């Protein structure tokens, strides 16, 4: 109980309280920075666990020939290939100490090639899926079911048109400089009704963060430890 409950709670309390108080005392003002560096260091070691977990799970799948084990094989090959190419800096033409000291992104290395020609296109592709999903989600979600939904629908149309040059083009009732075109309306919606809502949500979130932090520092919320047992 002492090791699993009391000591972690004590560490949380001390670190939290010290960081809050450090704001008040200039001598300790760099503590926040120091602690975040410590966090980075711990996170780096935790990666060994993460990487290990990845290898274990996919290795198991391949070993037990579960359906789809081929994908796990591709995953592991990719993992080890990238890891070793980055570690041994193949393609950089370096040797000895120079090789070990060079960063993985060293000029001409295969690691750069992997980044440039595999990683970048894949990440961009995943992100580009968003365009398709926005279309299918709005097809489902924007239905004029009631008054509120209708207001939302109209606002969505104004923003969609106002965010392109077509908005200015079809604003036949006003000249481009008049301040009443669709882009201007879109801007107004963003600047006033939307901004008011955003601010309210942000204030709520800020207070939520304060109270969650206090609960954690004071050891009231122990949900993140899995149980409420004293």
């Amino acid at each position: 109980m002492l090791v699993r409950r009391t000591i972690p709670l004590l560490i949380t309390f001390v670190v939290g309280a010290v960081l809050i108080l450090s704001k008040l005392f200039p001598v300790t003002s760099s503590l926040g920075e120091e602690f975040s560096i410590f966090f980075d260091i711990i996170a780096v070691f935790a990666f060994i666990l993460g990487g290990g977990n990845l290898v274990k799970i996919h290795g198991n799948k391949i070993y037990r020939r579960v359906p789809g084990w081929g994908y796990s094989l591709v995953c592991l090959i990719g993992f080890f290939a990238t890891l070793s190419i980055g570690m041994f800096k193949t393609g950089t033409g370096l040797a000895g100490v120079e090789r070990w000291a060079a960063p993985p992104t060293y000029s001409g290395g295969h690691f750069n090639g992997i980044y440039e020609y595999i990683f970048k296109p894949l990440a961009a592709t995943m992100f580009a899926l968003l365009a398709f999903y926005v279309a299918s989600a709005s097809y489902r979600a924007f239905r004029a079911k009631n008054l509120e939904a209708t207001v939302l629908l109209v606002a969505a149309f104004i923003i969609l048109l106002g965010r392109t040059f077509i908005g200015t083009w079809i604003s036949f009732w006003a000249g481009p400089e008049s301040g009443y075109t669709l882009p201007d309306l879109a801007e107004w919606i963003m600047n006033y009704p939307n901004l008011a809502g955003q601010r309210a949500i942000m204030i709520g979130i800020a207070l939520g963060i304060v109270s969650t932090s206090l609960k954690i520092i004071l050891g009231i919320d122990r949900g993140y430890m899995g149980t409420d047992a004293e």
Partner: protein
Amino acid sequence: MSFYEKVANIDRRVIFLLIGLAVAIPIIFTVRFPGFPTPMVQEIFDLVENLPAGSKVLVSFDYDPASEPELQPMATAWMRQCIERGFRIYIMALWPIGQDMARLTVDQLKRDIAEKERLTGKKVPFEYGVNYVDLGYKSGAQGVINVVLTDFEKMYPTDSTNQALSSIPMMSDTKSLKDLDLIISISAGTPGLKEWIQFGADPAGVKIIGGSTAVQAPLLYPYYPKQLSGQLGGLKTAAEYEKLMGDRYPQYSDIKDNKGRIRMGAQAIAHIVIMLFIVVGNITFFIDRRRGKRG
């Protein structure tokens, strides 16, 4: 199955296909629409244009390839303007991959400049250490900003090319953020423009402008105009900025130099397609409701 039922239970793959075409066709055939700069875009352009030559401008590349289509046109336009105006450019990155985005941008600009010099017959100085310096990426998000707020050299003993900062000409009178005339953060999220406002520009008393994705932009409106002098939000504003650049510097008016304007055509058509889907969705919804009432 009636036509109505077919529409009501439309396969999402049909939606995907139409969106794909709506995006691809305008890009392949470079569909263009006339653009009129919104007031904030004009405001930002004038702000940068009216800084005196030799001004010190920090450009922070806080995005990755995923947001490149939306943010790269802004970065390119701003860098071009800074070069043409003869500013000193300090490049930083709060995102690890931002460093590569900056490098690609600079490489592209170097190629551009040679071509533009031939076009205008005017020599455009763009030399490392003199007109621009690339400080590179450091991890620590706002922690990095906190440090450079008081001392560049403490965070960056060397630039991204391992050159001691103290030996770079343009760093000789630039010790911290406070010595700058303008900060530009082009960001796709956290850390980004918001952190630059809160931890950099505001405490340093330096003007800041920024570029955000359309999704992030609404979150930054609360800072305008007091803490943030203006932001480009999304591709449309980037395209408008390119238009202003093209009008002021005709050597950049060629459409192939204006990726934002090319992509904007795709966005416009895609928006219309999405709206058509919403309209169709609503029609089927109303038919459905009427039938429901009868049944």
